[in-house]
Every structure is written in C-alpha cells, then in structure tokens.
C-alpha cells in the first residue's frame, strides 16, 4: 500500500467537505473507495446536527478529472507509489 496525498477540488470538495488528506492506496480505484467512505462518515456526523443535509453523491472515476503528480490520469487501474499526489476535480467553466 502506498502513502499518498489526495486533494479534492470543485464541487467534489464543496459537497464532501474534504479538501486534502493522506491515505493508503494501491491504485486509483482504491482512492475513490476511501474518499467515498470518508465522505459518508463525515456526512453521518454532520447529519446529527443538521438532519436536512443532503447526502453527497458517490464520486466515480468516470465522473471526475483525475491528475497524479500533475499529469492527467486516464486509467482507474493506475498504480500509485509513495508520496504521489492525486487531484480529483470536477469539470468547470466560467468567463
């Protein structure tokens, strides 16, 4: 298992309230599993104070823009190594 840093951006960050964290993961799919579990736990905690909170959707690889160490990641099976930094972002636009 590699020790990696995960950073969430865009609506994934606003919805899960997770900005950055260190986790252990072998490959990209593991990252999604861990992040979704963390998000679920965080939601369960916050729901105690605010029952009206909406549960964030699960983040899936096909829905996200993923970068590893600044390079675009196209395969969910890509292996991870110690000290890798993974960015998970949502598509964006503006002006």
């Amino acid at each position: 298992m590699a020790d990696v840093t995960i950073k969430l951006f865009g609506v994934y960050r606003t919805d899960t309230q997770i900005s950055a964290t260190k986790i252990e993961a072998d490959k990209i799919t593991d990252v999604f599993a861990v992040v979704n579990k963390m998000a679920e736990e965080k939601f369960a905690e916050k729901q105690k104070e605010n029952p009206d909170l909406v549960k964030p959707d699960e983040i899936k690889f096909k829905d996200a823009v993923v970068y590893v160490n600044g390079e675009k990641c196209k395969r969910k099976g890509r292996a991870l190594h110690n000290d890798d930094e993974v960015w998970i972002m949502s598509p964006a636009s503006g002006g």
Partner: protein
Amino acid sequence: MRGEKMSELLGYMGKVLFVDLTNRTHKLFPWTDADRKRTLGGKIMAGDILLHHVKPGMKAFDEDNWIVVTTGPLTGCGCPNSSRFNISTISPLTNIVTSSNCGGDFGLYLKRAGYDAVIFTGKSETPVTVNITVDNVTFESAEELWGKTTSETQEALPDKAGKLVIGPAGENKVLYACVFSNERTAGRGGVGAVFGDKNLKAVTAFGHLMPKVSKRQKLNELNKKWSNILRTHPLTGRQLPKLGTAGLIAPMQAHKILATKNFSAGRFEDFEKVSGEELAEKHLIRNAACTTCVIRCARMVSVDNKIVKGPELEILGLMGPNIMNNDLEKIIEWNYVIDEMGMDAISTSGVVAFAMELAEKGLHDFGLEFGKVDNITEIIKKIALREGEYSELADGTRLMSQKYGGEDFAIQAKGMELSAYEPRHAVGQGLGYATSNRGGCHLNAGYMVCAEGLGLDVDALTPHGKAALSIMFQNLMEAVSSCGECIFTSYAVFPGFLVDKPNWGVTKTILAVFPYVGPVVNLLSHFTKAAQINIPPLLPHPIAVSYATGMRANMASILTWGAYGFNTERMANIILGQKAGADKLPKRLTEELMDPDDPRTKVPLERMKKVYNRARGWKDGVPTYHRLKSLGIEIDKEFYDQVVEEAFKNG
C-alpha cells in the same frame, strides 16, 4: 416622441434614443423592423450602427465618437439570465471598436423607459448626468458627483432606477476605465474613458413600461424549462453557483493554462491559496446574482466591514499567479479598489504584471516587483488618478512597451491585455485571442478553452479543427449575448451528460473526434439552411426570440446573426485603420515554448489563421467584399476598396 408604437415586432420597445451632449438635445434615431430582423440587438445592433457611422481616422476622444448602449429583445421578457446589455464605442486603448457587455440593471430599466437603445454623441462642457424617462430626457449637473467612486456615485442617484456611472478612472481617462451598473461592469476597452472624455458622469433610466411579447403563454413555459436546464446542468447548476468563476483556478492549474509570472508559465505552486475553494471556504458571505439570473455565480465578501462584490476568476489569476502573489486577501482588497476607481480588472492586472517584468529585466522601474504586494493598492489609486509616472500605466501595456521595450512580453492583442488563460496549453484559445475583434478578450475569442480542458477535454495542443470551432463559438456567443442573455446560458450547448462524465468511454470518443469535425462545421456555416431546426435543451435562445418577438428564428438564425455581427465589427475596425495581419499575439506566446520538451506548447498561430481566414471568407483578417455581401452587410464598394487598400498598405 412617445406614444406611437414604432415596431410590429414585439419584445422590443420600438425606439432608439439619440442624445447630443454638446447641445443637450435629444431625438429619435431611425431604426426599423428590418434593422431589428437583420441585427437582433445588443452588440450586433451596435456594431451595425457604428459600421455606418465611423470614418477613417476617427478616434475615441473625438466629439463625433458615439457611445452606443444597446439591449436585447429578450431583456424584460421573463427569460432567465436576460439582463445583459452592451456598450460599444471606439476604444481609446485599441483605437478600434470595443463592445463591452454588462449584467447590471441599466438595460432592463432603459426598456422600461421605452427605449431599446441610447446613443450619445458630442461632449458636455461640464460634468453631466443624463436622466431618461418615458416622457423626457433631462441633463443635470454632475459637478457634485465628480470625483466620487463608482459606489458613492450610484448611492447618490435614485435607488429605483437603472444607472450607468464612471469612477475617478473614467474621469481621468484611464484608457481601460470601465462603466458600472450595480456591481456589474462594462469592463473592457475603456468605455469609461469615453464617458469621462464626454464629461458624462452618469446616466439614469426609469419608467413603467414593460415589453410586450408575441406568445406569452409559450414563452413562460419555455422560460420555466430553460431555468430548469440551467439549474441542472453541471456547469451552470453546480460549479458556477458553488464556486463562481473562481472555481476555475484549480482546473486551469491542472491543465497548465493558469497564466503565471506574466505568462511565463501555466502553473503556479501556490495556486490553492488563491483558488475558488479557498475563497468559498474562508471569505464567501453569500452568493449574488444579476437581476433575472438563476445561476447566481457572483461572490459577496467583506472588505473594511462592508459587504462588497468579491473577485472573479480573472483577477484571481492575473493578480495572483500572474504576479507571483499567493495572498488572497490582498486580491480581495485590490478587486474592491479597482471597482471603486472604475477600471478594467484584467487590463489593470496585465499592466501591473508587465511593469513587474520591465523592472526584472532592468528596462524601467515603476516600483513594482513580482511577489511584492504591499504597494499595489496605492499604485492602483495612482493609476486611476494618473498621478506622476503612473499615468503611463494608465495607457496600457502596448503604449508602455513602445516607450520602454519589452514588446515580446507585453501580453496584449490589438492593444487589449489578455485574460488569465495561458494559450500555449490551449492553442484554440490562442487563435481566439488573436482573432477576437476587440482585442485580447477570451469571450469574443469564442472561449475555446471551455472545450480545451475546462468543461470538456478536447486535445488542447492540436491545431486541428480549432479554426472552425472558434468561428462557430465566436458566432454563437455573439448572437447569444445580443439576445440580451448571459453567455453562460450557452454552456448548455455542451450536453450535461458529456460534461458530467469526462472519463466515460462515450465522452472520450466524442471528444477525440471533435477536432476533426472542422470541415463539417465549416459546411454548416456556409449552408446554414441545414441548421434551420431548434434543439431546445441545447439552445433555447432562438425559440425564445421567436416567442418574444414574433420573428422566425432557429439555430441557423443564431449562427447567421452571429456571423453578421462578427463581420460587421471587423469591417468597422478596418475602416478605423486596423491593418491586414493585425490578428497577432506577442512573441512570447507564439515563439517561446511553455514546456521546453514539448514542441506543441506554443501557439501555432499562422497555421491556424490560414484555415480561419479561409473559413471566414477573409484575407489576412480583412473580410472580402463578397463575404460582406453574402452576409447582407451593406457597404459602398468604392469606399470598401479605399479602406481595404489602406489596410494592406505597410506602415
């Protein structure tokens, strides 16, 4: 002057006001239904008016330079995001036409006063406020307002009225001074300086009228569906409301298009500190919206215990990474000061970055250095007031580079500073910046970067297909904004399911094919009859125009109007002296590689321009007479020949 209906078409108010500031008189400007059908409204209407008015040699600060303020047919008709109006004039920054769009209330109120547009000519001897109502136009002394900031000026004017105001920067004719309406601005090209030159401190509009529409029930039903499309689309319904345009900083970093150190690089190590996420988590008090907007992307923050409009993407990028600053609070403060002074945040930031590089290279020291933030607030004010040598910064990077050198890194196109997207990792955007009519504007460019990695992920470094797609987006956005609509409403053209699933096999396949659809797109633009259909979920605009006005309109009409508008403004620029070959970018962007190891990371401009010019029916940036005629743009042949001959002359 009031009373009689002057249009069979509905949606419009049927009248255009013409105000002479020298003589303090007003009259109606002739504008018929044929004109409305040909130009739709907004910037296309203004471009058409200016095309038939400007003459070779006319300059921004001539009395005869007109300020043309135009609304769209959908404004006031109940459509979502329909407050947008346009101000066009000869820009003092670029010496060609600038059309500057704004989401404030003024356009809505102008229609309530009974007018679709107002044109200002002449020059008032003393500072003046022009008040427009249904029955009258009055000229009031603005001596007491002169010197006030944009917010102070608006506060001093009646609350229940549409307002256009300038701040000290406009009064001092900073070449990129802007005009404010509520917290929104007609930002680019120095329209505020033209107001200032004419001593026009403010304009107000008020009335009780409302536009009537052709099919009220159908339009109401469409508007509701349209609002729902906008609120459920991933870009307009999630990213923009939650993070604002500021949410782009992180994706731009990822895609290496975040202009850094005066466009020396596309990534900034400390990007997270100036990101939309940081802004939302640490500073956002609440969202704000233009009137009628269902997206609500604006950020309200606190400065000196006041709730004020917070930074958008452009200033976050250009006063953040582009000047090597990672202090978000400073950017919030500068945004506030720039707004109060009434200047274009993009050009102000571009000028600051250029001055920093001039100092770094030993060419001239204005006291500005990359990473140094403690003196910028004061310098912004000095620029606005043209104090001492800071008056030179008020003239923009092109003029600064002519005096001090550094032309290769004066990041401007046609004299207008570029916005925050580094085009060496989004080459289509680079083509757009160069071919944009008003200068370094990413929106008039066609905003290709939305497809090149932000909303969608088309290959950003290939030149294939970028010319055809740029033309299509340029035309589309021209028409969308001329309806009176916010151009964010055009994002639904990218179906939500594609945007939502960037790694889905289907999405990847479609995006891989995208750059090769160029020839098909070109064919479509020549044979627009093929597009005489409507696809409401993608583009409700032409249907809304039909229901509002009674005109027949479909997707083909949108592209036709857009092509008309883009070519009209281009031809007006040629008349004003723009030379053939003016669609350029600074050498840093076309000759220096962003990644030394990747030969694709500079903008292959000349190659893309060849395809672009062919597809547009232009020769080196000049529309051919044949193309103008085919679009229905009327211009005297002899006059055309004279100005085009001049355009192709050297020097």
